[in-house]
């Protein structure tokens, strides 16, 4: 079950970062992705096709697959390695009228033990001589959590996402954007397989496990700022910052710096991203006893942590936009390869595979390589 992480997909694939007064370019992307780290390997394809219909409508479709082979630290300490597949498809439509663009989107994600349906709607308006774009968005998630070890287990999870975005041209070489997003979730927010650890003097290891128990509501708020600047020698630099807080007492800061450098038919991108969060109020690496608190969690993603990502990317434009069309319809095409090297330091999550007395285990640390290669056609 890898249900986390669908929110960006719901809105991004449906909407993207598009202009209010201009329909997005027709394009097709074929991507292969590979995540390898912490005993987990996930790979698969993603295909996106976007096409205008007339002057006021544009349709987009995306098909995405995750093939997972997991022997993560959670799995090897409390369960058995497994393989899993998640299939997701999305459909969206943009409708342009004057300086206003309305968008609707639908995403369905299916795993053997999890089914997610998401609906999204947004309105964008260009203002002040097209210097400002205001976007309001709303998303609705309707999920169903099941368990592969208990066929009678079935719990709902509902989600609502409210977004406000402003993109502002500040000067002839500086563009900025601010996005505010509130997410409310209600329902089964646990993972039905995950357990927490508590001190148990009767156990040979000094600890035992019991099922985790989360609150059934969560509300989060995030505000993100980005600014991209065109450098005088034709290159671009971008700074990003995001602040996040939620009702589980997680507070996080994200900062990133990106540099983009074109050279002949190539475009090179380098990015460094820093992320830091506090832990959820019900998170413990080791509870003092069974059922010590009303809510209990030992999900390492809810522990205090700091992560660092270095991204290196190269894109090669093999069909340039010179006014002619290759194969009768392709105006421009490029192939892109990117590598993200992710490193996560957990500040309160022990590595139980280490041989150490209970409570004195070393902290866990995760390194992952995330590789993507994709071809993009613009027509």
């Amino acid at each position, binding site marked *: 079950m890898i249900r986390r992480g669908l*929110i960006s997909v719901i809105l991004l694939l449906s909407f993207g970062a598009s202009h209010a*007064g201009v329909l997005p370019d027709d394009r097709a*992307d074929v991507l292969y992705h590979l995540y390898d780290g912490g005993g987990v390997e996930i790979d698969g394809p993603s295909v996106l096709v976007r096409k205008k219909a007339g002057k006021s409508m544009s349709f987009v479709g995306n098909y995405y697959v995750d093939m997972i082979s997991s022997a993560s630290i959670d799995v090897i300490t409390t369960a058995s390695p497994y393989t899993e597949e998640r299939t997701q498809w999305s459909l969206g439509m943009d409708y342009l009228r004057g300086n206003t663009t309305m968008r609707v989107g639908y995403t369905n994600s299916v795993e053997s033990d999890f089914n997610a349906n998401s609906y999204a709607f947004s309105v964008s308006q260009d203002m002040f001589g097209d210097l400002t774009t205001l976007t309001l968005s709303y998303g609705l998630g309707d999920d169903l959590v099941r368990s592969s070890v208990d066929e009678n287990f079935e719990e709902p999870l509902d989600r609502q996402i409210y977004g406000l975005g402003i993109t502002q041209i500040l000067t002839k070489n500086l563009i900025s954007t601010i996005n505010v997003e509130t997410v409310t979730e209600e329902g089964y927010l646990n993972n039905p397989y995950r357990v927490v650890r508590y001190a148990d003097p009767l156990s040979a290891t000094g600890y035992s496990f019991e099922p985790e128990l989360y609150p059934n509501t969560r509300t989060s708020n*995030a*505000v993100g700022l980005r600014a991209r600047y065109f450098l005088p020698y034709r290159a*671009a630099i971008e700074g990003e910052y995001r602040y996040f807080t939620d009702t589980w007492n997680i507070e996080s800061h994200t900062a990133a710096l990106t540099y983009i450098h074109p050279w002949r038919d190539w475009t090179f991108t380098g990015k460094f991203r820093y992320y830091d969060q506090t832990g959820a109020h019900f998170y413990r690496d080791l509870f003092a006893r069974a059922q010590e608190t009303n809510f209990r969690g030992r999900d390492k993603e809810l522990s205090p942590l700091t992560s660092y990502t270095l991204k290196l990317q190269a894109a090669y434009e093999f069909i340039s936009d010179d006014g002619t069309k290759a194969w009768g319809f392709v105006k421009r095409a490029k192939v892109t390869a990117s590598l993200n090297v992710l490193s996560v330091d957990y500040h309160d999550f022990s590595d139980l595979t280490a041989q150490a007395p209970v409570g004195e285990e070393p902290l866990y640390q995760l390194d992952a390589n995330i590789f993507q290669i994709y071809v993009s056609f613009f027509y």
Partner: protein
Amino acid sequence: MAKKISRISRLLLAALVVAGLSGCGNIEPWVKPYERDQLADPIMALDGDPVSTAYIQHVYEAREGAKGGEGAVGGGCGCN
């Protein structure tokens, strides 16, 4: 005295709001359409690779506790 200052500041605020609203219709774009060639360069696209961006944000949301606020709602530069 404090009451008077409070009333004055409210009047000032109201005047500013009215002035601001009445000015909305008259805002002159300070970056003219013909000055947006640099903003229209593909290297200035805030999301030129939507499939890749959605994928990497999905990875972050799976590996970290935070989500949202990273530009899913988008926006544009009106420079085409």
